[in-house]
C-alpha cells in the first residue's frame, strides 16, 4: 500500500537535518522531529541549571508523554520544556525554583506555573510539596559564610523547622521563609548580612521578608536566647498568622456589632423617655388652660403636675393599650405570614400570650381597624404568597417582565439632552484615534468596492486562489492536486494510476524520472534534499 507522507515531509522541510535524527518509521517523521527538538532544548536548558544526566533523561520522558497526549499543541514549546524540567526538579528534590526557570527564559512565572500545573495534572504525576529546607544550602552558599557555612546552615534549618511547627510556612513562598531564617541565623553567628543582600539572593520583596520576621517575632520561640533556642524545643504550636488575623477581625466585627446594638438600645430608651416627656408636656398645656386657668401659676403648676400625673397614668394605660392593640394586629399579620411559610407555631402562641391585655381603648373608641375590617386580608395574603412563587418563569414570547422595576430609577440612568451632548464631545475627544481608524477603514472598503476588488474578509492569512483542476480521469486529477500542493515529488504516480484498478501493493520508486518530469513548479532546495534522504527508507518500505 502506498503511504502518503504529507505531514512528515512538511515537518522535515522545516529543519533540514542531514543524516541524523530520523527513524525508519517514516509515518512519524514530524513526531520524531518534535522529540528531537525537545531533547535538544531540554539539554540546553538543563545544562544551564546544572542538572545531571538522569534528570535530563527523566525530563525527556515527561516530554515524550506530553507529546503523545498532545499537550504541546497550542502551547509554546519552551513553556512545555520548562514545565517538564521543573517537574523533574520537584520529583528529584533539587533546589531549583520555578523563578530560576522564569529568569532564564524571561517568561512570566505564573504563565510557566500554569503550564506546569496542567502538565502535572494530565500526566497524573504527584509533585511532592516543596520543603523550604531544600533551599537552605543553596542560599547559604550564595551568601558566602566561608568556614562557618555549615553552622549557619544548621541554625537556619533549625529556625525553619521551628517556623514549620508554628504553622508559618503553609501557603507561603518557601524562598521567603528561607530568607528570614538565614537572616536571623546569620545575625546569630555575628554575620552582618543586610536585608538587601538577603533579598538579592532569595528573590523576594523586602516587605515580604520584614513580614516574615515580624511573624516570627510574634511566636514565643523568638523570646528565647540563642543558647536556649539551640537546646530547647517549645511544645506549643502557634496558629497560622492568617488564621489569627482572621479571628481578630471577627472579634472586632462582633464587638462593633455589640456596641452598635447597645447604642441602639440606649437610643431606644432615650427616645422613649423623650416621647413620654413630650406627651406629658402636650397634655399639660391644654389642661392648664381649661381647668386650672383660675389658679395662680405656681399653685396651678403644682396641682397640674399631680393631677396631670394622675390623669397621666390613666392616659398612659390607654396609650399602652392602644399600642398593644396595634401590636396585636401586626402580630396577627406576622402570624398569617408564618402560617403561609409554615414556620413554627410556638412563637405565635408565645407572642399572643405576651400581648394579651384587655384594651381599654377599644371599649372607648369601638373596634380599631384590623386587616379584616379594612377588607385587605386577601391582598395581604396575596402579597405574602407571591414571595413564595417561582419567580423564574419565562413568558413565552420573551417579553421583558417589568414587575419590580421602578421606572423613575431607570430614568435616572439616562442622560438628558445637554448632558448627552457634553458626554458625546468628551467621548469623541477620547476616542478620536479609533474613529479616525474606522473612517479610514470604511474609505478603503468603499474605494475597493468601486474598483470591484473588494473582499468581504481580509484576514491576515491570504487565501490562496487556486484555479480549478481540469483533468480527464480521477487519477490525473489527483496528480494535479498533488502538484498544486507541492508534495508531488515524493509520490509514485504509477501506483496512483493503478489504484483505481486495485493494482499492486509494491510501490516502485521511480524517483528521478518522475521528479524531473512532473515538477514544473518551483521546487525548493529543501524538498530535493529531503527526497534524496528519503530514497532509502522508501525502498525499505517497498521491500516489506
Amino acid at each position, binding site marked *: 500500500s502506498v503511504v502518503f507522507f504529507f505531514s512528515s515531509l512538511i515537518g522535515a522541510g522545516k529543519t533540514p537535518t542531514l543524516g541524523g535524527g530520523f527513524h525508519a518509521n517514516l509515518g512519524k517523521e514530524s513526531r520524531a522531529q518534535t522529540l528531537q527538538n525537545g531533547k535538544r532544548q531540554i539539554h540546553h536548558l538543563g545544562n544551564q541549571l546544572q542538572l545531571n544526566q538522569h534528570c535530563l533523561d527523566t525530563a525527556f520522558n515527561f516530554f515524550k508523554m506530553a507529546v503523545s497526549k498532545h499537550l504541546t499543541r497550542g502551547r509554546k514549546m519552551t513553556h512545555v520544556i520548562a514545565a517538564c524540567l521543573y517537574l523533574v526538579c520537584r520529583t528529584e528534590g533539587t533546589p531549583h525554583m520555578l523563578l530560576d526557570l522564569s529568569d532564564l527564559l524571561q517568561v512570566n512565572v505564573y504563565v510557566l506555573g500554569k503550564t506546569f500545573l496542567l502538565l502535572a495534572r494530565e500526566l497524573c504525576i504527584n509533585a511532592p510539596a516543596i520543603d523550604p529546607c531544600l533551599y537552605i544550602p543553596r542560599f547559604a552558599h550564595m551568601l558566602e559564610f566561608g568556614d562557618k557555612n555549615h553552622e549557619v546552615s544548621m541554625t537556619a534549618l533549625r529556625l525553619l523547622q521551628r517556623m514549620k511547627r508554628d504553622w508559618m510556612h*503553609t501557603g507561603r513562598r518557601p524562598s521567603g521563609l528561607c530568607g528570614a531564617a538565614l537572616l536571623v541565623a546569620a545575625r546569630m553567628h555575628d554575620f552582618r548580612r543586610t536585608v538587601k543582600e538577603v533579598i538579592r539572593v532569595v528573590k523576594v520583596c523586602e516587605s515580604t521578608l520584614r513580614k516574615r520576621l515580624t511573624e516570627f517575632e510574634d511566636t514565643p520561640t523568638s523570646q528565647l536566647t540563642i543558647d536556649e533556642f539551640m537546646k530547647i524545643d517549645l511544645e506549643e504550636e502557634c*496558629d497560622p498568622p492568617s488564621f489569627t488575623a482572621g479571628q481578630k477581625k471577627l472579634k472586632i466585627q462582633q464587638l462593633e456589632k455589640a456596641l452598635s446594638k447597645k447604642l441602639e438600645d440606649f437610643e431606644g430608651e432615650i427616645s422613649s423617655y423623650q416621647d413620654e416627656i413630650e406627651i406629658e408636656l402636650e397634655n399639660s398645656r391644654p389642661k392648664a388652660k381649661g381647668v386650672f386657668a383660675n389658679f395662680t401659676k405656681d399653685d396651678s403648676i403644682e396641682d397640674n403636675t399631680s393631677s396631670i400625673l394622675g390623669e397621666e397614668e390613666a392616659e398612659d394605660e390607654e396609650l399602652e393599650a392602644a399600642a398593644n392593640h396595634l401590636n396585636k394586629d401586626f402580630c396577627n399579620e406576622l402570624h398569617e405570614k408564618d402560617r403561609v411559610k409554615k414556620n413554627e407555631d410556638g412563637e405565635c402562641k408565645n407572642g399572643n400570650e405576651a400581648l394579651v391585655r384587655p384594651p381599654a381603648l377599644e371599649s372607648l373608641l369601638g373596634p380599631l381597624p384590623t386587616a379584616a375590617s379594612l377588607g385587605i386580608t386577601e391582598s395581604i395574603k396575596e402579597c405574602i404568597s407571591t414571595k413564595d412563587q417561582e419567580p423564574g418563569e419565562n413568558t413565552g414570547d420573551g*417579553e*421583558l417582565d417589568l414587575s419590580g422595576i421602578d421606572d423613575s430609577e*431607570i430614568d435616572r*440612568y439616562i442622560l438628558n439632552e445637554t448632558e448627552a451632548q457634553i458626554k458625546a464631545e468628551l467621548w469623541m475627544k477620547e476616542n478620536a484615534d479609533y474613529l479616525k481608524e474606522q473612517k479610514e477603514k470604511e474609505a478603503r472598503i468603499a474605494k475597493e468596492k468601486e474598483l470591484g476588488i473588494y473582499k468581504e474578509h481580509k484576514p491576515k492569512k491570504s487565501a490562496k486562489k487556486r484555479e480549478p483542476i481540469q483533468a480527464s480521469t480521477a487519477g490525473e486529477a489527483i496528480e494535479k492536486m498533488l502538484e498544486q500542493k507541492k508534495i508531488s515529488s515524493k509520490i509514485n504516480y504509477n501506483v496512483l494510476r493503478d489504484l483505481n484498478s486495485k493494482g499492486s501493493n509494491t510501490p516502485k520508486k521511480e524517483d528521478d524520472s518522475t521528479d524531473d518530469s512532473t515538477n514544473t513548479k518551483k521546487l525548493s532546495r529543501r524538498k530535493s534534499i529531503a527526497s534524496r534522504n528519503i530514497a532509502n527508507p522508501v525502498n525499505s518500505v517497498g521491500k516489506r
Partner: protein
Amino acid sequence: PLTPMTPMTPVTPASESSGIVPQLQNIVSTVNLACKLDLKNIALHARNAEYNPKRFAAVIMRIREPRTTALIFSSGKMVCTGAKSEEQSRLAARKYARVVQKLGFPAKFLDFKIQNMVGSCDVRFPIRLEGLVLTHQQFSRDVEVRVTTAYEPELFPGLIYRMVKPRIVLLIFVSGKVVLTGAKERSEIYEAFENIYPILKGFKKAS
C-alpha cells in the same frame, strides 16, 4: 515524618452536617436582548455606561441597586455580574434591559441563564494543606482519576481542590476559609461544602 494514614475516600459520612452555610458572593449570568444594538448610541445617552472600542468591544454599564456590572455587546447579548443571589441577578439583568429599552431599542429578555456562582465560608479552624494534598493525590492515583488537588505555594497560597461530583472547584486556605466556584446552582455549592467539610475536619490543626 508524617504519621501513616490510610488514604481517605472523599465520601461524606451520613452523620452530622457542618452547621455552616456558604454565602454566595458573586453570580454571573447571561441573557439575550434579541436585537442589534448601537453601542455608541447607548454609551452616549446613558449616565452609567462606559465604552472604549479600542480596548473592548462592549459597553460596560453599572447600576447601584442591586450593585452589579453588565457587559452589553452589539449583537444584543449581555453578561451580568456581581449579584449576590439568583433573584438579584435576574432583577439586575431586567433593569439593564429596561435601560436599553428606554434608549430606544426593542430589547427582549430571552434565555436568561446563570453561568457561574461563587460562594465562600469559614470553617473556623486552621487546615493542614500539605497533608490534604498528600492523601488526596494518593487517592486519585489508586482510582486512576486525574489528580484532583494542587497545592503550589510558589504560585498560589491556597490549595485548589477539583471535586468531581458535583463539579466544583474549591480554594482552601490555611486560615480555614474556603471559596467554592463553578456552580450552576446554589445546591451544588452547598453539596460541595458538605462533602469537603468532613475531609477538612480530618486535617484540622490539633490545638
